[in-house]
């Protein structure tokens, strides 16, 4: 059985699927992916990253200092990619069954 991930976590993994990202880039990309519905705050972001790191779904890729600020980049691990694929399949099945139910309802209405 696939463990259900919360939307922000799925968006985070999705953002990382196209390559390593630092914290602020993740916040902006998650906002873009969700059409502005999910606006991660730094504390929330790090809470999610802590969980994903401990689960082995993401890893620290590299660090750099830009204008005196530390930027830490995160990348998707193979386990993380597999977990994201499972979530995608789960969401696809959900969408298909919902669509089928609505189609049936339209046919019987």
């Amino acid at each position: 059985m696939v463990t259900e991930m919360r939307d922000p976590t799925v968006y985070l993994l999705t953002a990382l699927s196209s390559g390593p990202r630092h914290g602020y880039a993740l916040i902006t990309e998650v906002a873009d992916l969700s059409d502005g519905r999910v606006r991660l705050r730094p504390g929330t972001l790090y809470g999610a990253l802590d969980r994903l790191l401990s689960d082995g779904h993401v890893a620290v890729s590299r660090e750099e200092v830009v204008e005196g600020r530390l930027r830490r980049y995160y990348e998707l691990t193979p386990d993380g990619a597999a977990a994201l694929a499972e979530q995608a399949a789960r969401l696809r099945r959900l969408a298909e069954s919902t669509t089928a139910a609505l189609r049936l309802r339209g046919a019987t209405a």
Partner: protein
Amino acid sequence: MSATSPAEAAFRRLLRVYPRSWRTAHGEALLGVMLDVADADGRDRPTAREGTAVVRHALRTWAAVGGDRLRRTGIGGSFSWIGPGALVLGTTLSAVSFLFGEWFPGVHLLWGNDFHADPFGPFPSAGPLLYAVWLLAFGAAATGASRSARMLLALAAVGGPVLWTVCDRVGTARPPLLLMYALTVFAVTALVGLPRLDGAARRRLSVAAAGTSAGAGLVLLAVTAAGVALPAAGIPEGFPSRLDIAELGNLDLFLGWGFYRVYGLGTLVWLASPVVLAWLVVGLATVRRRPARAMAAGLLGVPAVMVDPRTLGTLWLPGPLQGYGTLLTLALGVLSIALSLLVVGVRTARVGAPSPGATA
């Protein structure tokens, strides 16, 4: 923003809510993100929601770091047994006290210090009221009704002091103070430390309670039987938990001045206090780096456990309030033990997830 700008200082102050170890590993990276977001929003200080999110994450991090510390020291594992252990010990004390103190077939027993008090219905004392709550609590826990078990344990924790206060007021016999005190401490400990039990754990709990109850009963009977052969001499008068038999007869000769009648239950009860004290010491050991908490718990809890609470009550509240001093002392002792257990993180010890701080 420069490295010493007021904005950076404001965000750095916010980071202080994190444990030092987490701050060292991740503080600069989080600070960079917060400053980036603040720049984009045109702010120079954290918003309330941003601060709330940081505090919530920091609290989870503190819990995880505390859990890691408990696991590393091996104390976490022992703490996971405190709740079930207290439940088993309290149930055993209740079952054995009922069997041997209230209902031993054919023998009408009176608790030694209640010669002038009235019996409670068919029982020598009002103890069965408390024992029944305990046995029901155990039954609920063993069958998976954890909410009912917690409610009954809370009732047992409150019921002990209430029962003995009421009994002393209306002149009804009650079990010895130390027995009720031990049961109350066990009830609070079980209430705080009882985890959610799966089927296998519940079966182990049932086997443990049945085993300890049967073991304690057999020890009492065996030593009593051995006591039959011993001369009836040298029994200390006024033993705090001394049992007496109202009508002496042949059965009295069988029981004689043996272990069961004089020392049996008393020994069990006296053993309970060191067990509680040992757990408390373990709890205090885990807060050794927080001397204020350790001192507070020790000052309140240890004397109340070690010293007869009736004596402390007399010392603290002489005169017309003397009777209430016992209740006060008990309440303080139980409260301090519960608080110390909570402080050292009985609940934290149950957290199975790895620490974010340790892996990030």
